């Protein structure tokens, strides 16, 4: 398991420090930044973890950083914290995919709960991406004929029917079938079909 970090971006250093202390008290790793730019400079796009983000900052505000990260393809779940409770800003941030939007002064346990939720979401996102990639790699390693055979297999067709469809002998279908199962790392067609059924869809946009 990759180590997750809790990134904190808030222009108030005291807030950064107290959140760092709070998340470290439960054994999590924290990194703090007092501006969006310093975070962007240091942040690797594929970093694992979540981001606790202040709303009102200059020159790059929290919501603008959220937008930038999205454009960069970063999937880091974001929890906003703010001292100013403007409804429309909160609604926009949530629409853009924030995990939560919390008002300062925050309740410590409530913040920890949200952080844990965000970290879980991050782990799930990563897992999905990895599974998709693994599956894509496996399918990419098949020859085009093997891929045809695989598609027909997962549709539940028998070797005989596949042979007729593709104009090849049953024996040849059997050879392809064996290779497909081998390359995809499964023992049966049922498992092969399961591999595709499990392939998680992209989360629908709200």
């Amino acid at each position: 398991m990759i180590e997750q970090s809790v990134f904190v971006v808030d222009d108030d250093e005291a807030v950064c420090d107290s959140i760092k202390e709070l998340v470290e008290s439960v054994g999590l790793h924290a990194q703090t930044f007092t501006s969006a730019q310093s975070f962007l400079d240091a942040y690797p796009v594929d970093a694992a973890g979540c981001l606790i983000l202040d709303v009102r900052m200059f020159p790059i505000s929290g919501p603008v950083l959220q937008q930038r990260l999205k454009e960069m393809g970063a999937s880091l779940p974001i929890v906003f914290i703010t001292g100013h409770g403007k409804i429309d800003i909160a609604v926009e941030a949530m629409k853009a995919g924030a995990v939560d939007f919390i008002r300062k002064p925050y309740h410590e346990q409530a913040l920890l709960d949200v952080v844990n939720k965000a970290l879980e979401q991050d782990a799930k996102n990563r897992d999905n991406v990895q599974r998709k990639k693994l599956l894509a790699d496996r399918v990419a390693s098949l020859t085009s004929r093997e891929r045809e055979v695989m598609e027909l297999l997962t549709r539940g067709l028998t070797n005989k029917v596949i042979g007729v469809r593709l104009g090849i002998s049953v024996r040849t279908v059997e050879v392809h079938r064996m290779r497909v199962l081998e390359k995809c790392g499964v023992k049966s067609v049922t498992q092969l079909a399961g591999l595709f059924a499990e392939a998680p869809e992209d989360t629908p946009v709200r």
Partner: protein
Amino acid sequence: MSEREQLRGLLASTCKNIETFGNAQSFLEKIGSIQQACLIAPASLPDMNARELISRLKREGKYIPVIVLGEDCEMPRVVSLMRAGAADFIERPISKHRLKAAVQRVLK
């Protein structure tokens, strides 16, 4: 003029088909026949609140985006509505521009 009539007027130029319902139940009874659509609902309806309606739609596998209308709302409540799956939240008094943009976004 009721808010329903007012919304109808505001959206007349944006949407071809606008249907209005006086409560959640009458909407839920009709929903089987509704295709690509969005729902605009106040935070509290006579028979259930928007949050319950959203959960109910989700539970029944109906993926209709819900735009919630409200006023004097506390932020935690609004955020919790968004977390529950509301597509958008618009504060009253409703701005025509904001409403049109919200409808266009969710129907896209």
